[in-house]
């Protein structure tokens, strides 16, 4: 239980504060990816691929323009990738190369706070990233490129934050396990990219086997939940499933992260 309540302790906030200070020092470069990513993807998937799909896609029994279909998926995919990569590479570099964690652990900060600091920071960073993407999507809506229910956009923020925290907890497991940064390819190609493919983020899952597998994939429920929300459809099933999966991930993965990292960082 203490592993979970440590998220609320001041030490976890101090770790987040440290990461935020570093991020704000480089704000001018940090803001570029969330602005450019949706523009690039909308151009590539929407205008490029979408040009071949003039009739759009069928979603929940109704036709939807491909760019409109892709936009919520893009938010879900960004949530997944940003948080996972932050907890994989960002945390690994701080743990192994910069030795930031070791420095923090000689103070009143304990390993459980370092772990939560990394998770909460990934959640916060991802949420700000998605919020900026939301602003870019609003501009696209104004230009008539997509048709979303933008009034629901504020509801996306807390969903994205909790999802990003759970994905970061998954990423930290790999950070604790991979021996070197080169071995990051293993979780990326064996776990992360397959999860991304079976998620209905960029294309609907028509194949029954893929559709069955995707029901256990939190990214699928996040993508479909956000899509339901932003396309004004019923998203209760997917958001409910997402809540259950995220609660399971956080309650299992956070203590597991602490156990694995205790061995890795403290040698204990």
């Amino acid at each position, binding site marked *: 239980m203490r592993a979970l309540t440590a998220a609320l302790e*001041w*030490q976890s906030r*101090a770790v987040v*504060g*440290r990461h935020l*200070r*570093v991020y704000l*020092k480089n704000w001018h470069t940090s803001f570029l990816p969330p602005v450019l990513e949706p523009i690039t993807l909308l151009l590539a998937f929407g205008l490029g691929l979408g040009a071949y799909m003039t009739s759009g896609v069928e979603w929940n029994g109704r036709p939807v323009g491909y760019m409109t279909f892709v936009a919520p998926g893009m938010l879900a995919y960004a949530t997944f990738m940003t948080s996972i990569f932050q907890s994989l590479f960002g945390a690994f570099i701080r743990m192994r190369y*910069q*030795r*930031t964690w*070791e*420095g*923090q*652990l*000689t*103070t*009143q*900060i304990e390993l459980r706070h370092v772990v939560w600091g990394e998770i909460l920071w990934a959640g916060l960073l991802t949420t700000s990233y998605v919020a900026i993407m939301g602003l870019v999507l609003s501009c696209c809506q104004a230009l008539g490129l997509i048709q979303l229910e933008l009034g629901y956009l504020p509801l996306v923020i807390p969903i994205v934050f909790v999802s990003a925290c759970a994905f970061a907890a998954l990423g930290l497991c790999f950070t604790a396990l991979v021996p070197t940064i080169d071995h990051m390819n293993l979780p990326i190609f064996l776990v992360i990219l397959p999860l991304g493919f079976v998620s209905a983020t960029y294309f609907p899952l028509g194949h029954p086997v893929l559709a069955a597998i995707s029901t256990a994939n939190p990214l699928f429920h996040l993508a479909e939940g956000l899509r339901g929300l932003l396309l004004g459809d019923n998203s209760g099933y997917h958001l409910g499933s997402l809540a259950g999966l995220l609660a399971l991930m956080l309650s299992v993965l956070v203590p597991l992260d602490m156990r694995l990292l205790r061995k890795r960082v*403290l*040698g*204990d």
Partner: protein
Amino acid sequence: MPPLLQARALVKRLGGRLVVDGVDLTCHAGQVLGLLGPNGAGKTTTLRMLYGFLSADGGAIRFEGVDVSKDLDRFKRQLGVCTQDDTFDGDFTVRQNLEIAARYFRPRPPEVPRRVDELLERFALGPYAGDKPEALSGGFRRRLMIARALVHRPRLLFLDEPTTGLDPQARVAVWDLVNGLRAEGLGIVLTTHYMDEAERLSDALTVLAQGKVVAHGTPKSVLGDMLGDHVVVLEANDSTMPAVAAWLTTRGLGEPMSVLGAWQLPLSGEQLADFAREFPALRYEVRPPNLDDLFLKLALPCAP
């Protein structure tokens, strides 16, 4: 008045191996306690348990008589830790490193900007305040590490091999800083491989070998207990060496310490007199023992 830090019967297993086996040690305010021992003796593991990085499998650590396990957070507020490797934050400047370290303590250290200025001046880091730590020389990096460990005004400081890799001038500068901190009443626990450093800085020594305390006391008393009063140095290629080896064996003194073709025999006054009677024609030198001798003796696998 209870000592600042007291550890009793500390035990730690790592990877199924007993690394620390019943270690006792005590450090008072205004005292430097030197923790010595060869590689693998358990010094760093002991130190890591003392500053709360590792939890002990057995034993107790008390700070001013209070069991630290009851309130580890409060105990850690009183500690400053300078690890063996540089662990400063490379994303920040020298000044920001001190400021960010202050944020890792509650209650928050008062008047942080003034404290940071004070430390920058005291450790001669002022000219580098706006630089990244990577730009500093080895000696100034160590100064930054020690300054960072002091930003919250701790009462007990852990220094894990603080001068390893430094040139003689930088080492002396660190010694002066440590002396100054002791004079201010800080308790300091120090590990080092440099025997001259341990002798000069330590008020008391605790010597570890294979995870156990093998000697404790002032540097002089530890040497007397572990090595005797004299060290006999003689050329190892002398034809009488087999006879000397046999003499050592019959008296249960074990193998001689061999250094660069010379044998070093730590002997008590009585044993030296006996040795002189036994080998009247042998040429040798007699000198007082030092901590290097102790280190060599502990490092010898067959040492008695």
